[in-house]
């Protein structure tokens, strides 16, 4: 998959757009129809095959950026960002520049941390918030998986409860382009989240100010972010609920796309 190509889905109407934020380029996939939804990816990029995207696109107009500085996210233009809150500010500026209005924000893993930070700084932006196994809060009894001690493929595989599901998306031996894009992703992740590793000590306090209805989802076999972080997020937010998705690791969107999409759709119909 070359730089900036949309993930392969059955829906052929995905486009790629590039706009300028802070005077620099940001690119995103766009597709579907319905109310606007911002989907923020995990720290190892857009999976090359992504059924979850199609499912979301049935109910929403999905904007799915490549995170600035990450692979396909114009890395040369964004190396001056220093932390995840900087990233969240840029995403917020993106949303405003697209005139999306109040929208649903869905964050996957690292993207969930970005989404949570966005919510704390712009509560009025949100119709509702969905956080899927987000980083961002420090676990008490365990640790968030340290990706920097292992190789990028090992980390990507750690996101899957079923290695066959990984192979189906990335191949049993991911090609050099995929390895190279993961390396770019790691460099930016390192820039933003080396230490404290994958959490913001002030985030729980700031989340108390996010009144938007929030659904937190966690795979029952997540080896990357401990399940206790789900409860920590829920307890920090005034209007949040927590649900578990069965037979899923950290990459819930790839392992259980239909179950996840179903929960998101149900939440969006019912939440006020």
């Amino acid at each position, binding site marked *: 998959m070359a730089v900036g190509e949309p993930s392969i889905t059955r829906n052929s109407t995905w486009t790629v757009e590039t706009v300028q934020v802070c005077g620099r380029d940001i690119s995103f996939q766009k597709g579907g129809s319905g109310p606007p939804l911002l989907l923020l990816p995990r720290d190892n990029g857009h999976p090359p095959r992504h059924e979850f995207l199609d499912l979301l696109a049935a109910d929403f107009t999905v904007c799915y950026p490549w995170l600035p500085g990450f692979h396909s996210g114009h890395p040369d233009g964004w190396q001056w960002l220093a932390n995840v809150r900087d990233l969240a500010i840029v995403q917020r500026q993106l949303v405003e520049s697209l005139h999306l209005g109040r929208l649903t924000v869905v964050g996957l893993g690292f993207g969930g941390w970005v989404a949570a930070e966005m919510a704390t700084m712009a509560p009025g932006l949100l119709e509702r918030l969905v956080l899927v196994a987000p980083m961002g809060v420090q676990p008490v009894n365990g640790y968030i998986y340290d990706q*920097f*001690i*292992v*190789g*990028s*493929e*090992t980390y990507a595989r750690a996101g899957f409860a079923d290695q066959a599901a990984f192979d189906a998306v990335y191949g049993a*031996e*991911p090609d*050099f382009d995929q*390895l*190279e894009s993961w*390396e770019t992703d*790691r*460099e930016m992740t*390192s*820039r933003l989240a*080396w*230490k404290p590793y994958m959490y913001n000590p002030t985030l729980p306090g700031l989340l108390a100010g996010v009144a938007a209805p929030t659904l937190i989802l966690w795979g029952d076999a997540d080896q990357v972010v401990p399940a206790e972080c789900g409860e920590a997020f829920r307890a920090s937010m005034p209007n949040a609920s927590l649900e578990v998705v069965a037979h899923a690791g950290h990459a819930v969107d790839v392992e259980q796309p239909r179950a996840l999409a179903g929960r998101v759709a149900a939440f969006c119909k019912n939440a006020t």
Partner: protein
Amino acid sequence: MHLMYFTEQPLSSWDPETTELEEVAVGGGKTQRVTALLHSNKNFDPRDGSRLYNERLDEYQYVDELGFDGIMLNEHHTAPFCMSPRINLFATLLARLTKQVKIVLLGNPLPIWDNPVHLAEELAIVDMISNGRLVSGFVRGGGVENIQANVNPLFNRERFEEAHDLVIKAWTQPGPFRWEGKHYQFRVVNPWATPLQKPHPRIWVPGVASRETVVWAAQHRYPYIGLNTNFDVSQKIKDLYVEAARGVGYEPGPENFGQLLQCHVAETEEKAERNAREFMWMRGEFTGLAHPVWGSPTGYGSPSNRKSLIEIAAGRRPLNVPPPLNQRRLEHTFVWGTPDQVITQLKHVLDNNRVGILALWGNDGRINHEDSMNCIRLLGKEVLPALRDHAKKLGLKDPFEADAPVSLTQGPSEVLAPA
């Protein structure tokens, strides 16, 4: 010619045959048993530590008594191959325990210091207590050094350069001054400890041919010391250094180049070879740091090596396997034997490399204290005099003999002669 002695200070009580090693994933579905970083320190017994540290200090004092020009020190962390996790501690001990050797730090890993001002102070104190015998080398620190210090490898080079600049300023510019840099910020820099040597202690830069480091050293006019580099690599380093040096307006000579090599001497070749095998104790890769990710973590490596580093990290390409023992002897990165044999081999090294600085790495693995002292004795009494003669014939002067400038920006050195 500057001839110095080196040891990694191995934890000689660590048994490669019986110690249980942790197994970690290294990509491509493979695993590797590791002897660093995640190898548990439950295998460290401070009773052995106590004995070994004191034996090392006896060895260093003997090196000094025998008239070597220097003792080379280094620093590594979280591994049994090196018992020196703080180079400045040993420098301070040697400042008082030795009388005449240069105390050559190769080197302080600058990026893992959060306070370069404190580093500048410590080094100044070593220089003062030793009566001006410090050579203050600096390094980037290996991947493992950065990981265990929790310093972001992505900023390793930037921190190296900024910390260096701050140390030089703390040494040479009267305080108080302020420093607001990208990685270091100090509202008051005013250390009441400055070096005896003026303009400041010499700085030598060791490495294994990272291009950027060679160029940086050349542009600062700091001698570069190749670590176990074979003739080809040594020549590449030299060519790169010379080009960079000419670019900033000077012609380097032997005083700009140095070489470390493994060197064990004994009365018989058989005994020397038996001990030489101990240098291969870390499963053949002497540091045990050969991990495809830890060796060069994300953001650490040269951009020019990106493709191969990605392949290595994913287990698609093997790490460069260090050559076996006999090949090292052929390549002259490891010389061993009787004094005569070692003299012949080292003369060949000097003939080829034309370096003004030579570091001889005399012990490793489980070589015992008696054999280490014996090696030092034979080096000091028999090998060094022969090498000095030979170096003189070749005109190989070290930076002190050549009175080389301390750096590009500092003119000829003025050394405050100790009383």
